[in-house]
């Protein structure tokens, strides 16, 4: 059983090496004529003003939080989806209760405007 995972492991190592070949080749083949202006930050030819480390909108973070919550919900659905035929009607009801609670949460979030991009 683990043999198939070993295949993936070998493939993973291959996938790490694979992009290095063109990177090294381009490093060897390409010209290297750096100038201070070329190495400067590209902002359409204008002088870069200020730092990029500014505070971003909190909305991005709230979406990430909501994502983590619903991702965990989906994770609970996975084992059930593979076995709902065996565990039957009882599990369907149990899962329905679980989902209703969380869909209630989604509706609440929606109504409160937390899914709104402002």
């Amino acid at each position, binding site marked *: 059983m683990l043999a198939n995972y070993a295949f993936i492991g070998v493939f993973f190592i291959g996938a790490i090496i694979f992009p290095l070949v063109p990177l090294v080749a381009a490093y060897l083949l390409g010209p290297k004529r750096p100038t201070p202006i070329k190495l400067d930050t590209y902002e359409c030819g204008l002088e870069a003003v200020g730092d990029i480390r500014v505070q971003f909108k909190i909305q991005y*973070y709230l979406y990430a939080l909501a994502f983590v919550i619903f991702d965990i919900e989906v994770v609970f659905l996975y084992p*059930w989806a593979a076995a709902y035929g065996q565990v039957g009607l009882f599990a369907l009801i149990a899962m329905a209760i679980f989902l209703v609670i969380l869909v209630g949460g989604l509706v609440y*979030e929606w109504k409160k405007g*937390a899914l709104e991009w402002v």
Partner: protein
Amino acid sequence: MELIIFLITAAVAVAGAVAMLLSLNAIHSAIFLLINFVAISVLYVLLYAPFLFAIQLIVYAGAIMVLFLFVVMLLGAERAEDTRERFVWQRPLGLTLSAILLGLIGYIALRGPAPEARVTNHQFAAPERIAEALFTTYLLPFEITAFLLLAAIVGVVVLHTSGSQAGKRE
């Protein structure tokens, strides 16, 4: 063969964790943490728990890491310039706790594995088995999890309503 893979993966996991702690830049820390998560998922495969392997990647490497990256990036707090210690008791306490943990692990390692801890059935952690356990023995904890998640959703809404006045910047 399995032992060699285990040793390599474990070494990567420990190295990732140590590098995460030592690097001063929070984004570098996040990348090392990602490496650590991936290595731990491989350890789950070696324990014949493929479902946990996938879940480790989906939840920790896929979801929690995004949250970490967002916190760091959105606050612009990746450079650990402020190295002053806010809490003086933090470092001794952390050292004591980790010493206790190491001692416990050492004790268990010296005692050897419990005879009942050996994997006899390699299908024990297949998704179907997990579903069976979830809907029979652990049904109540499962439903309570829904309420925990609901509480988290309420938390998001609260953050939203209190943050919407301040969050007009992009």
